[in-house]
């Protein structure tokens, strides 16, 4: 008994961190309706600023040198002293940094997003998180840090007579959390500012009429949240051991749990919830070492059980249909009716097949083949987001985890205990198993993914919007810790990749990376292409048939859908099942591509990234998934960039650029890239079919100058930063980019008058019909 009490108390230290971050989440949510996935990243940047100033005497600013020259540089770090500043100075600097980050987040990201759809806000905050992680990697290095604690680091011997030593740091953290909680409560309950914030959160227009500026209030709330996060991380952070940018950012998940306990509205309940979460986690961690604890849960129970409990509470509180008068959420972009699917497929097939043979044994350039395969598989995964988020409007952050389920099950099903591959290569970690042939093993994997997907979808019956998004993250984490990383559950060696037998088709060997090194095999690329085309056909057919119409009806209005005879719950589960099936197809392809599966490929952070890139490409259409696939990590576009700008070390910037891309897309172009480019391509296609000699000459005259300017810029600018670059490719790339920019600008001028950058609710309808672009906005 005294053990139980002690471990509950021991968890309060970490719990106070959750409590303070959770309070910040609630404050931001009330102030501007954003679930701030970057809350952990705020804390991370603050504590790193603190540690860097105290240790090395540098102040690192939250941006990077983006100018493409070596002569003119953006100031990124300021040297304050040679051997570190004193603790109080560092503390003040960290708080000032937190204020700056809070203000930047509000004015640069969330103020412009104030009337965006919930998904847009989610993507915006994921973008901020990725951006801060990337900048922190650049400015502070990605390795762990162990900042010195500023609280006394001794222990209380025989604490409360429980016969154990209790760390003083945890004690002071709890004291601080309680004090801060009380201060916040007084602030929001009894001051004019608090009153105004609460008024604005329940009725923004009313607050304006009373003379308050909701935007100013929101900005202040962002600052409070950011400062709170930094404060918490500086005081409590050192408890958990060394700190990494990614590890600290991940704190947001448990904090979201605390915020959900407080229903995203109550600060005291949230803080109590955070403390409770920490305590329960600590106790579960203690119990997990006991004999009676189910071994299959022992590695993950600590993270998973509290999240599942919160999900259950939300589920029981939820309603099957939204109530009358529920504030309607802003809509997602239109899901265009796919046209000319066959033509698109033929074009893609030709491109991929040509690339497959072009890059066969192409030496260093076969990286492109590899990247193209990665992009094609990523496209399949993003198609699953198109179904679940684009078509039926459920924000699922667990799609990659479902892919992982299929891949792991497949690896298990085809395992036969062999120690060598058919080619005679050694399999490092042989696993015994039923040894099923690959198509059957893959099918079983996909079916299991479908079943798990439907389970993941169960909460969606009663939980909506961003709350559902948080619950799906909980599922992603559960799958990761309870299954992928749990050797008892997978039956595979923990942490070690499990072998996937290469697929073969009527005697054609579809070998993948493991066998071929970097030398490409066209057969595998064509295999991926065929599977992708199949998946595209499924998703496009879905949209054009009754099932897709019902999905969109549910997305548009659940009450009206029910009135039209649609069983909303069943339709949502069906969508989760279909999306999981498509994700499962992507998962088994990942397995074939890698020749093995390992938990590292399916961490929940990667799942977030996939949704974000799908959004970037265009979450509501097949074309969007293709663009998203090209943009995906290690996909064609990043690899091409890294190849041509080898010494720019572009891979250091992928997180930053990805984050910025998400923020800019969410603000400027919530439809994604594909719907923006599509009219351009349509226009070009029509022109190409009609053009004769004179038209070509006229076009040359019209577009030539733009191309030349772009080419010259490409030639001049990049060498300023990059020494080794391609004399041939840079001007060409610059020219094409200039042409594309011109096209987008013209199109915006011609058709964009109805949709100024602020009007996110009114997506253009250009892609719904085959009428000439640019279509008018209603």
């Amino acid at each position, binding site marked *: 008994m005294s053990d139980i009490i002690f471990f509950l108390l021991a968890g309060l230290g970490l719990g106070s961190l959750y409590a303070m971050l959770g309070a910040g989440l609630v404050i931001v949510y009330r102030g501007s309706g954003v679930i701030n996935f970057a809350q952990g990243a705020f804390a991370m940047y603050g504590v790193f600023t603190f540690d860097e100033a105290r240790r090395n005497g540098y102040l690192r600013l939250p941006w990077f040198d983006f100018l493409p020259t070596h002569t003119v540089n953006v100031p990124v770090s300021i040297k304050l002293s040679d051997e570190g500043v004193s603790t109080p100075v560092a503390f003040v600097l960290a708080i000032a940094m937190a204020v700056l980050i809070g203000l930047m987040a509000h004015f640069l990201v969330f103020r412009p997003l104030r009337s965006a759809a919930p998904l847009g806000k989610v993507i915006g905050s994921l973008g901020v998180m990725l951006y801060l992680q990337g900048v922190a990697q650049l400015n502070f290095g990605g390795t762990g840090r162990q900042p010195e604690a500023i609280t006394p680091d001794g222990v209380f011997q025989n604490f409360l007579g429980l016969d154990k030593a209790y760390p003083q740091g945890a004690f002071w953290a709890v004291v601080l959390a309680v004090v801060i909680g009380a201060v916040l409560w007084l602030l929001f309950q009894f001051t004019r500012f608090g009153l105004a914030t609460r008024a604005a959160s329940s009725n923004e227009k009313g607050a304006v009429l009373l003379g308050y500026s909701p935007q100013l209030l929101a900005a202040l709330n962002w600052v409070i949240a950011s400062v709170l996060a930094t404060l918490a991380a500086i005081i409590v952070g050192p408890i958990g051991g060394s700190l990494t940018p990614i590890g600290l950012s991940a704190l947001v998940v448990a904090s979201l749990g605390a915020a959900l306990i407080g229903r995203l509205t109550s600060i005291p309940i949230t803080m109590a919830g955070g403390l409770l979460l920490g305590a329960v986690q600590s106790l579960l961690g203690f119990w997990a070492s006991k004999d009676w604890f189910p071994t299959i849960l022992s590695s993950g129970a600590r993270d998973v059980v509290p999240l599942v409990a919160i999900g259950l509470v939300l589920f029981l509180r939820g309603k099957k249909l939204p109530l009358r008068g529920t504030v309607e959420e802003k809509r997602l972009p239109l899901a265009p009716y796919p046209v000319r699917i066959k033509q698109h497929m033929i074009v893609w097939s030709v491109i991929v097949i040509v690339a497959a043979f072009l890059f066969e044994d192409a030496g260093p350039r076969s990286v492109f083949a590899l990247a193209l395969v990665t992009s094609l598989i990523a496209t399949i995964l993003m198609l699953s987001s198109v179904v679940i988020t684009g078509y039926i409007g459920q924000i699922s952050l667990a799609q990659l985890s479902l892919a992982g389920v299929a891949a792991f099950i497949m690896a298990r099903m085809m395992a036969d205990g062999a120690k060598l591959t058919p080619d005679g290569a050694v399999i490092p970690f042989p696993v015994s198993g039923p040894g099923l042939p690959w198509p059957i093993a893959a099918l079983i994997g996909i079916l299991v993914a479908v079943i798990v997907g439907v389970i993941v979808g169960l909460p969606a019956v009663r939980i909506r919007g961003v709350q559902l998004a948080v619950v799906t993250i909980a599922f992603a984490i559960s799958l990761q810790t309870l299954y992928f990383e749990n050797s008892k559950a997978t039956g595979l060696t923990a942490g070690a990749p499990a072998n996937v037998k290469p697929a073969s088709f009527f005697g054609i060997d579809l070998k993948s990376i493991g066998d071929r090194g970097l030398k490409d095999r066209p057969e595998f690329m064509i295999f991926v292409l065929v599977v992708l085309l199949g998946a595209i056909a499924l998703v496009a057919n879905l949209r054009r048939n009754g099932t897709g119409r019902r999905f969109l*009806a549910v997305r548009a209005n659940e009450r009206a859908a029910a009135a039209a005879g649609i069983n909303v719950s069943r339709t949502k589960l069906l969508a989760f099942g279909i999306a999981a099936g498509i994700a499962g197809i992507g998962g088994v392809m990942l397995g074939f591509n890698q020749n093995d599966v390992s938990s590292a490929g399916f961490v929940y952070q990667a799942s977030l990234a996939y949704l974000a890139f799908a959004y970037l490409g265009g979450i509501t259409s097949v074309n969007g998934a293709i663009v998203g696939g090209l943009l995906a990590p290690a996909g064609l576009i990043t690899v091409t960039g890294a190849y041509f700008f080898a010494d720019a070390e572009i891979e250091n910037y992928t997180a930053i650029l990805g984050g910025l891309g998400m923020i800019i897309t969410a603000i400027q172009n919530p439809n994604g890239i594909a719907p923006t480019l599509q009219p351009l391509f349509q226009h070009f296609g029509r022109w190409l079919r009609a053009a004769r000699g004179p038209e070509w000459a006229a076009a040359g005259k019209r577009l030539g100058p733009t191309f030349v300017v772009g080419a010259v810029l490409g030639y001049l600018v990049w060498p300023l930063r990059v020494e080794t670059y391609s004399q041939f490719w840079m001007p060409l790339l610059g020219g094409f980019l200039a042409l594309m920019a011109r096209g987008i600008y013209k199109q915006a001028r011609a058709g964009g008058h109805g949709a100024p950058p602020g009007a996110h609710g009114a997506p253009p309808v250009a892609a719904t019909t085959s009428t000439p672009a640019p279509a008018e906005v209603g």
Partner: protein
Amino acid sequence: MALLKTYDMTVRYGGLAANADVSIEVPAGKLVGLIGPNGAGKTTFIDAITGFTAISSGRVEFDGKDLAGMTPDRRAHLGLVRTFQSLELFEDLTVRENLLVASERPTWWSFLLDLVRPPRTSPALEARVTGALEALGLEGIADRLPMDLSHGQRKLVGVARALAAAPKLLLLDEPAAGLDTVESQLLGQHMRGFLDGGTTIFLIDHDMGLVLNVCDYIYVLDFGRIIAEGTAAEIRKDPAVIQAYLGQSAGEMQAQAGESVAARVSGTETGGATHG
């Protein structure tokens, strides 16, 4: 024979009885109206019948079946189809697709076919959708998106969508709200047309003009209770109705409807529906 019957139906929100002991009857093939001032509980009544709000006591019978515990979609499948007062169209679907959604009756395996099969709708389905479009004169805008339509057109699409579900009983929740006089009259004519097509209609509105002119039988709701029922002529003379509309209740709608009611109550029989 009564298609819809409620027996002492009560709906409570906390301590407030939004509907108290409401017993009404809608005979097949008739157009029955329910009027009442704002806040009388009209929409709650439709919500309760269609399963969007749980009833606290009493019973609802449709087509001889007790509806207790049935979800809204099941009720729609039985032929009990409603429209919404606010414009709850599917904004991402064209007008035709809006109607198709309501008229399709999928089986559990239809999604498998939908995944592998290019787009296809059965001729019977097409005919029903086209019929509904024609009934309301919407053929010209079938491929437009709701956001491109005028308010009046959107209202008509809402009615057409309900009609495309081939309802036995069509529940119209304030279809004339926000329509101008001509549109409102046209809607009245359309409704008589639906009746000829074999659809029973239950019309809820606060526009006395429309209701008194087209309905065969009328119930009057005030503060959640039925205060009067009868034919249009009887309702016009009913002192309780005059009291409800002109007496205590305030609100912009009453101010609107009041004049025309008063004019009619005083005995002048007007031909067309005028309001506003």
